[in-house]
């Protein structure tokens, strides 16, 4: 673990950090949905400006915000090329076998890339400014209406929060096991396919064993402290929504409403 993973929570005190996590999650959902129905240049312009403002307000650097996009650049290139080459046969510049690069395909490719990139940046802002536990709390409260139709939302939230809490522990454990095996001769950095495949077992077996052992210990620890199922669990901290939270949500809804109107008019 020498580089920070993309989208990792970066503690801070920006406007966006201080927003309620439920509002942020809801806003993310609204933004991603509205990115999907944008179909005009002006719509994309509004969205790009909105994202730029959000990145600025969140206090995370532009580099961090664009990190996820940069990491997926090969994927973006691929979907861009696929769209350009195969999307449409009309007005194709030339045609060779099934390959028909066309202006419509080019535009479609750009649009898909832009959409995915914007959605990635939006989620990146969310996860970089919200602690993982806050996110699971937000999910719990947003899915709580499902309780009415018999879905155990409390337990789902419990599973999520345990899973998230264990990510750092398991990744540290993986790191140690990887180093231990490397030190005694495993070759994870080999370029030979056979050696690469061989190198999986010494890593996977100990990691699974460690994970199951931890799960076992955790369940015993939880029962020893009187855990009787997640339903009806109360929370230690309860933050009512603040004026800022409501106005932030209002701004997001307003922007998305504008985007929807533009979509309907064109």
């Amino acid at each position, binding site marked *: 673990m*020498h580089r920070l993973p993309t989208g990792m929570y970066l503690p*801070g005190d920006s406007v966006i950090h201080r927003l309620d996590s439920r509002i942020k999650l809801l806003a993310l959902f609204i933004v991603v949905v509205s990115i999907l129905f944008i179909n005009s240049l002006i719509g994309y312009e509004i969205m790009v400006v909105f994202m730029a403002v959000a990145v600025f307000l969140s206090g995370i650097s532009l580099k961090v915000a664009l990190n996820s996009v940069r990491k997926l650049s090969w994927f973006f290139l691929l979907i861009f090329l696929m769209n350009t080459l195969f999307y449409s046969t009309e007005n194709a510049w030339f045609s060779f076998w099934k390959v028909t690069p066309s202006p419509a395909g080019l535009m479609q490719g750009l649009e898909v890339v832009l959409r995915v990139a914007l959605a990635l940046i939006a989620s990146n802002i969310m996860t970089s400014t919200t602690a993982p536990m806050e996110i699971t709390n937000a999910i719990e409260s947003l899915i709580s209406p499902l309780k009415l139709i018999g879905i155990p939302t409390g337990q789902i939230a419990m599973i999520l929060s345990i899973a998230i809490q264990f990510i750092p522990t398991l990744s540290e454990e993986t790191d140690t096991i990887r180093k*231990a095996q490397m*030190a*005694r*001769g495993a070759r994870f950095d080999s370029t030979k396919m056979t050696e690469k495949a061989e190198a999986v077992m010494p890593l996977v077996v100990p990691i699974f*064993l460690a994970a199951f052992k931890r799960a076992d210990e955790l369940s015993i620890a939880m029962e020893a402290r009187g855990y009787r199922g997640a339903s009806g669990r109360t929370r230690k901290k309860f933050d009512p929504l603040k004026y800022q939270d409501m106005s932030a949500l209002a701004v997001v809804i307003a922007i998305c409403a504008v985007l929807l109107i533009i979509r309907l008019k064109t």
Partner: protein
Amino acid sequence: MPIEINHVSYTYFPGTVFEAAALRDVSLRIEDGEYIGIMGQTGCGKSTLIQLMVGLMVPSEGKIIVDGKDINERGYQREELRKKAGIVFQYPEVQLFETTVEKDVAFGLKHSGLSKTEIAENVRWAIETVGLDFEKICAESPFSLSGGEKRRVAIAGILAAKPKFLILDEPIAGLDPKGRKDFLKLSGDLNADGVTIIMVSHNADALAEYAQRVIILDDGRLIMDAPVKEAFRDVELLRDKGIGIGQAREIAHLLTACGYPVPEDTVRYKELLPFLIGIGKGGD
């Protein structure tokens, strides 16, 4: 193969909010055949230091020179270094994964270039060296063993490569008293056979008994690099830095404070014993 650590610093996550210096300008030299103890509080940089020594991490600044070659230079054969260096991490039993003890111990030798008979010989030697019965255990699954046996098997897996220097990170933590004694004796025997031993431990008594030199880290800085007797002399300094001092040293220190003529460089039980007997005979 002497190890030279030249003004090495290591910083985790530089340039982010998580930036943390683990080592600050550490320099030291380890000669062939030494038995060295590394001490320090949790988080002082011990683990970082030992991982840098075998090239599992790359220093942010400074150089690590093994056998006269910079191990982080381009073109350096890391695999050669790993053949010569063995590292036993904390709780090494987590690294077991094979179906039988024999296969697990042999894992590290797969790419060693040794012949089948040589590998079999090394494996047998390693399993017997850690005090297990080869015939009885070789076909067992490593997961069916007891905790202490698992650790022995894991250590055998590292010894099988016959490393020239062996790094041990808290090897006796969680072992029963007999397991500890056996393991320390094993480390001493290996050292007597010419293996350089670098042992990270909080157990000052164990280090006093076996190590020739002690290195103490505090918040990433090297604050002590001296022969055992000298390193444990200043009890107040060690207490101040949160370093455990051994019982033998503690008793000697108390006796000195009470006016008994115990030398301030007493660190081993064996050295302490004549004084205790003398005091007992004196009838004080």
